[in-house]
């Protein structure tokens, strides 16, 4: 039995029917959402159908989609709860801002600077993910959640006392808890709690969409690989996975570090979309927001998380007509949706009504394994 399981995990590709049904469907839907969404929004914007406020949300939507996909790697695939992804996002944001600022004089093409910044952010955040991941991944469940939460808060606190700046000769200065004398006002990159100011924006809707596509590509391929199946089998039953010789720590760390790197890249893109960026933005609420996308979209369901991310990013804008009541409405919507999607009795009633309305509709091939992990 153990041999058989091991063989199916190690298989380079799952054969025929399984692969077609699960992997291809998920890939088509996910990429489809991205491409159709991009085209529709782009057309809508050029035809003047979409307001300025919403247009400003295009890059954040892509960023949050990427973050939802990245966090799904930890929560959905690896079955661990992380409440610290805003920390990785923050590291990505500030790495990206520093790198683009240093390269401003030497690399003139915006896109090239953006790519270098993205790579740098991925490297730095994966190192951070590795350092924090090695000790903590031995913890279980809620304890891991609180440690990741603590990590996110530590990152935000450290960002509050970090100072970066370029002096007249273009040399990078770095200080802790005090302003730098060698750097004049124009050379400041990051100023403690004020954060980054005067960022030259390099992000665009197209590049953000490409980043989301890249994130999707990485995660979907991982999910369909030998390593991905190992990660999921450890999620489903850690002891069984261990007993067939899987290195639990290695696979958990792999998912965590990859997720951190992808979150860092998304963060880098986010930072490149605004001219100012304060560390206070990356608090627990942001980590929680990303988790809300994942859970609302269905844990482990990649495209579900993408849709939830897009809708919940637009929702506060769309609720603007409720003015003061919009965040209250948002909270109520969140609670009601959670109860409706997870309460067994209400779920059964809703699916009963849906069935009555569409008697001949085929059942959706939903990702069952992801739901079971919850």
């Amino acid at each position, binding site marked *: 039995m153990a041999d058989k399981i091991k063989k199916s995990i190690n298989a380079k590709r799952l054969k025929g029917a399984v692969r077609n049904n699960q992997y291809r469907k998920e890939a088509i839907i996910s990429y489809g959402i991205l491409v159709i969404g991009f085209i529709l929004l782009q057309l809508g914007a050029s035809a003047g159908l979409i307001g300025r406020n919403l247009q400003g949300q295009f890059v954040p939507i892509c960023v949050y989609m990427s973050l939802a996909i990245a966090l799904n790697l930890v929560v959905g695939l690896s079955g661990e709860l992380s409440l610290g992804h805003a920390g990785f996002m923050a590291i990505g944001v500030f790495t990206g801002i520093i790198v683009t600022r240093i390269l401003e004089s030497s690399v003139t093409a915006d896109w090239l600077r953006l790519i270098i910044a993205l790579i740098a952010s991925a490297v730095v955040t994966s190192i951070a993910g590795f350092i924090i991941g090695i000790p*903590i991944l031995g913890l279980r469940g809620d304890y891991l959640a609180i*440690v990741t939460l603590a990590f996110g808060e530590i990152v935000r606190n450290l960002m509050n006392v970090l100072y970066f700046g370029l002096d007249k000769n273009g040399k990078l200065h770095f200080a802790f808890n005090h302003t730098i004398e060698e750097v004049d006002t124009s050379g400041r990159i990051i100023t403690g709690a004020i954060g980054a100011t005067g960022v030259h924006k390099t992000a665009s809707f197209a590049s953000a969409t490409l980043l989301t596509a890249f994130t999707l590509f990485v995660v979907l391929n991982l999910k369909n690989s030998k390593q991905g199946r190992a990660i999921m089998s450890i999620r489903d039953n850690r002891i069984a996975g261990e007993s067939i010789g899987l290195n639990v720590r290695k696979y958990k760390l792999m998912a965590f570090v990859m997720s951190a790197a992808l979150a860092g890249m998304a963060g880098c893109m986010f930072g490149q979309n605004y001219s100012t960026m304060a560390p206070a933005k990356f608090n627990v609420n942001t980590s929680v927001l990303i988790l809300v996308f994942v859970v609302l979209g269905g844990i482990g369901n990649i495209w579900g998380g993408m849709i939830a991310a897009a809708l919940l990013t637009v929702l506060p804008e769309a609720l603007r007509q409720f003015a003061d009541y919009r965040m209250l409405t948002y909270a109520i919507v969140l609670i009601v949706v959670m109860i409706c999607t997870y309460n067994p009795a209400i779920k059964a009633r809703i699916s009963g009504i849906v069935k009555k309305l569409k008697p001949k509709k085929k059942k959706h091939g939903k990702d069952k394994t992801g739901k079971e992990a919850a």
Partner: protein
Amino acid sequence: MSLLNSLISGLSLGSVYAIIALGYTMVYGISKMLNFAHGDVIMVGAYVSFLLTNHAGMNAWVSLLIAIATCTVLGIVIERLAYRPLRGTGSLAVLITAIGVSYFLQNAALLLWGADPRMFTSLFKGFKTIHAANGSLTITPESLFTILANIIIMIALTLFVSKTKAGKAMRAVSEDNGAAQLMGINVNQSISLTFAIGSGLAAIAGVLMCSAYPVLMPTTGAMPGIKAFTAAVFGGIGSIPGAMIGGLILGIIEIFSRAYISSELADAIVFACLIIVLLIKPTGLLGKKINEKV
């Protein structure tokens, strides 16, 4: 003497964390959920007490009692409407719902009471600050009463949980939900009672905290909530003495790092200590180790 002064304010802050952490730890023990909205219940309690004393002219101690009653009811209502429908569906769904409740409470408070910070009048206005050792040692009535309140609550709660029938039922439910039900324990009632006690304590913590740190805003409860949650995990979540020890240690660490290291980095140091403790003892200081069965 400044060391002793810091120690006293650390114990006082730690007592507030301990009282809040009790709510987290009891709720976690009985329903295995992280009640993220707990911090905001503190804020509601403080607001109720504030409005009754400052706008209705009520006695501060009477307003405290009404705040406790309000929060108790609020806790039961939250559990009934938001958490009970999701019981048994996995911790993540309830966690997100708790976050939704937290947003709801914060924004409802924002609408009802506005975003302006209010200056909270101390519950112990009539009491004098104690000066000892030629005036170098000062003990404010706030810190004295907070520490006292913590000790009283801790003793009362320990007695309640170990001696009374309802307390025993609560322990039974947190040990094994299903078996407790088979023994004829009303599980729903036990869980409601836990939420009621936790939220009532949150109101006390809110008033004590705002007496010592008198700025009251709709987001006042969020950060102490997270810190108290950290304290609960620090001491071993699910354990009542653990919450007390965790809260006190955390409060002392926070005040000492604020006084001697850096006030900006105090939170980072607190959270770093949490990570170190969990690395050495993965279930917290007094947490039970659960053996896994195949």
